């Protein structure tokens, strides 16, 4: 049976500098029995999407239907678990769990009975009269779950509920939730999980919707037919993880856009992390599985991806079937000393990042070799949102400083060429 339906959901924000689209034409349905994961990097609008389903945010375009009825206010059939728990610190565990029942107008005895049951179910007995600040993170999130489950929602909305917990606690809570779900000990008819962890999505969900970023669009939907409990080391599990990884790293749609726009949207990775990754892969004989790399470094996709992309862009490495393979240039870079590295980086950066070259050109053309940051920001804003433009320029300045292409004065907010440096001959490289 169809529970939830999203129709042409579009969300955009208007700034003086232009319109930013967060979600672009999202359509999907959720049926009874679905455990759906919304997966994507940060900026893909997945949390916004969850809030639209809850009725907390109104989309600019499109409609949400719950059991065939359009949602105008808060969705009557949902309860939500928040990333940072969102517990009321001045209420005890019991009071927190009871709060939603109080809002419904249930009499005290009934409230207490239901709340106590939910607390027992989620394994919090004994902590009824504790305040949230007396509990550990994992226990707090259990309160968050109890508070949502006590409402007996048709759809349980989970907004990255495990991401603020340490690895073991998160794993424990995940398993407890799956157990409640597959043994049907909760009346919940569907679960929607927002996450940026591929492994978490593949481990828990039956359906995964992959979202791209800037703007958020559905790039792929994947069904997972492995029965619970899933073995994370099994062949089929790893295959799905790899498939998702290459879909996200490949990002065919964005690559095309990138070439079309011809603006230099460089991945936001610091020189330090690029160097670190190249060195690490070099130590691993120049080849590493990206998924395993992330696991080993305890990094999420959204943190690791920009670094991988930066290595690719600079020609230090290539991505092939979920593996990161160093190129000759990458190996040379990894084994070089500090000064040689800067030289290599400079050559590659000027070659691969046209905008860096443009910056140097502009600086050289000025008689005092100084240009305010705002000038380049304006140039970048033509193709990017204001926030993105800021981040882009920060990254560009980081790269440019490392390569000793130019200097940056943080107090005056201006880029300049140091007087001692000789002018870089740019024409030879083109």
């Amino acid at each position, binding site marked *: 049976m169809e529970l939830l339906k999203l129709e042409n959901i579009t969300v955009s924000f208007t700034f003086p500098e232009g319109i930013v689209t967060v979600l672009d034409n999202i359509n999907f349905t959720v049926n009874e029995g679905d455990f759906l994961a919304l997966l994507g990097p940060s900026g893909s609008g997945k949390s916004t999407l969850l809030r639209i389903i809850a009725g907390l945010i109104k989309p600019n375009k499109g409609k949400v239907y719950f059991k065939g009825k359009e949602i105008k206010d808060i969705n009557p059939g949902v309860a939500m678990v928040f990333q940072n728990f969102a517990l009321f610190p001045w209420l005890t565990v019991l009071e927190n769990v009871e709060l939603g029942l109080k809002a*419904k107008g249930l009499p005290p005895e009934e409230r207490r009975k239901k709340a106590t049951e939910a607390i027992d179910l989620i394994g919090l007995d004994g902590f009824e009269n504790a305040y949230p600040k007396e509990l550990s993170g994992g226990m707090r999130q259990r309160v968050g779950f109890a508070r949502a489950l006590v409402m007996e929602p048709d759809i349980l909305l989970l907004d990255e509920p495990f991401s603020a917990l340490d690895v073991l606690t998160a794993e424990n809570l995940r398993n407890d939730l799956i157990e409640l779900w597959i043994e049907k000990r909760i009346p919940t008819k569907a679960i929607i999980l927002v996450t940026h962890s591929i492994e978490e999505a593949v481990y828990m969900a039956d359906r995964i919707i992959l979202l791209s970023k800037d703007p958020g669009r559905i790039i792929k939907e994947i069904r997972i037919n492995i029965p619970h409990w899933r073995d994370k080391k099994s062949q089929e599990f790893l295959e799905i993880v790899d498939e998702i990884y290459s879909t996200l790293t490949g990002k065919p749609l964005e690559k095309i856009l990138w070439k079309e726009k011809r603006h230099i949207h460089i991945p936001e990775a610091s020189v330090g992390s690029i160097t670190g990754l190249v060195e690490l892969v070099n130590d691993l004989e120049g080849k590493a599985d990206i998924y395993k790399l992330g696991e080993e470094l305890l990094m999420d996709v959204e943190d690791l991806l920009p670094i991988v992309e930066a290595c690719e862009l600079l020609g230090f490495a290539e991505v092939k079937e979920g593996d990161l393979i160093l190129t000759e240039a990458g190996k040379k870079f990894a084994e070089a000393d500090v000064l040689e590295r800067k030289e290599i980086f400079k050559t590659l950066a000027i070659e691969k990042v046209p905008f860096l070259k443009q910056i140097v050109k502009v600086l050289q053309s000025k008689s005092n070799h100084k240009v305010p940051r705002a000038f380049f920001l304006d140039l970048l804003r033509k193709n990017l949102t204001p926030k993105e433009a800021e981040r882009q320029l920060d990254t560009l300045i980081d790269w440019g400083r490392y390569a000793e292409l130019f200097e940056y004065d943080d107090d005056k907010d201006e880029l300049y060429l140091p007087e001692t440096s000789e002018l870089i001959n740019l024409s030879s490289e083109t």
Partner: protein
Amino acid sequence: MPRLIWSPIKYRKFSVGDIIIFLFIGSIIYSIATLNTIYSKPTQQIYLDLSPLKLPLYAIFSLIRMIFAYIISLIFTIVYAYTAAYKKNLEKILIPLLDILQSIPVLSFLPPVFMAVISLFPGSKIGLELTSIILIFTGQVWNMVFSFYQSLISIPRDLREAAKVLKLNPWQRFWNLELPCAAIGLIWNSMMSWAGGWFFLMACEMFTLTNQNFVLPGIGSYLSFSAIEGDLTKLFYGLFTLIIVIILLDQLVWRPLIAWGQKFKIEFVQDEETYESRVLLWYRRSRIFEFIKNHIADPLKEKLNQCFVRYYTEKTLKAQNISIFPKILNIIVSSLLGLLVLRGVFGLLNLLIKLPLTTWEEILTAALLTLLRVSLAVIITLLWTLPLGVKIGMNTKLSKILQPIVQIVASIPATAIFPIIIMYLIKLPGGLNLASIILMLLGTQWYLLFNIIAGGMSIPKDLIEVSKLLKLGRKEQWKILILPSILPYLVTGGITAMGGAFNASIVSEYIEFQNKVVKIKGLGALITEASSTGNNALLAGSTITMAIMVVTINRLFWKRLFKKSEEMLS
């Protein structure tokens, strides 16, 4: 199976807390009963029994006035801050208006308040009491409004969302989300407001209006009266009583409240700064409180909750049918409000037009003189609070010992000591000038001191260590480490201190002492005089000048400094 969840220790004996509560309620009932007999004497003629034996009674009268003023302040705070926080179109008017209202001294409110109240209760003592209460209210409400508004707009987003998804109705949202989030700020600001109330109490319990004197029995009027008669002994008795009242309030009300308020902290990290109160423990063990909680408060809360749930469910059902009605109501209310504001502005302009140019000249010179005095007071304050505040702030041991002492000393209203100071200074040439500056100083130095202490405490310990390792000289340490870190605190303290000093000018530039009026040229003196002689045009003119001056200085000087310091730290 139902389980026993809350099991307080039953059959507890009466505790000290019960006795305190009992005494408090008893004394209030007794005083209200006596109030009537005191008033049966003619009030128009200025008279007050100065027998020290009456002092406890007077203290309770003043306390009741303050409590009523505070209750009105609380209600006003909630309504005003709520409107400002949730009605985006009204916010743009209400918040700047708050800035202006905050800069208007109490006495400027006197004539309009008096006229309004007296026309409602002609010739009655209730009218007088109400005037006094409203005057106290105008002195203490604004910072509370500001604090509540600030808390409302900074409620964490996820808590708001949680409240929405749980479908709390506005009533439940207020008690479970908004009030708790605002509690700590509100408690601290209430404390400040009470200190402000004591400061202006003398002016609020005995005032002159259109050359008529009005006295209300209370500790403030007792002090004023002893000052007018020049009776030092009685002045000391009054002061002594006042200090006892303030210390009692601090120990029995504010400290327990602050300790209790700690549970409303939003951050989950354990704070190193903890507030403890033995009295709070007494209250918690009190049987009266327990009885009220279990048999009155909790059932009442439950009843109200059910009522509101029913009310809001019906309302949402109705709202689906007719949704234009609230909109129309909204338009009517806001247009009525607009008309009222227009009428007020028109009346004000009408008054101001009457003022001749020479009077404006007078006002401006007076304003400059007051500005000079205020600046001097702030500079002198800075000279001693800066080194001391930083020293206390940076030294944890020192601050633990000194903080409570300083807090008590600070809560003694300087106006009460003022007549004594005057007595010695009045013989000196320019003595009143000096005295005026001293009163401003006494009234406002604490804001700066407390903020600087807080600033000193905020300097990161590792930076202090680094500066020691680098063997920075005293001068460098101040320039590089101390001043930049305390600047935001300094600015916050400065704004409050300067505004407070301006407000204090109404009592420091114009004093009735030993049966004669002593005054010096200044904006505060002008306001007090205009209000007592009933010169409303002059009152309006000088009040507006003061408001403009305070707001301009805040905008052009303090806020810019604040921005600068924020940039420096980020």
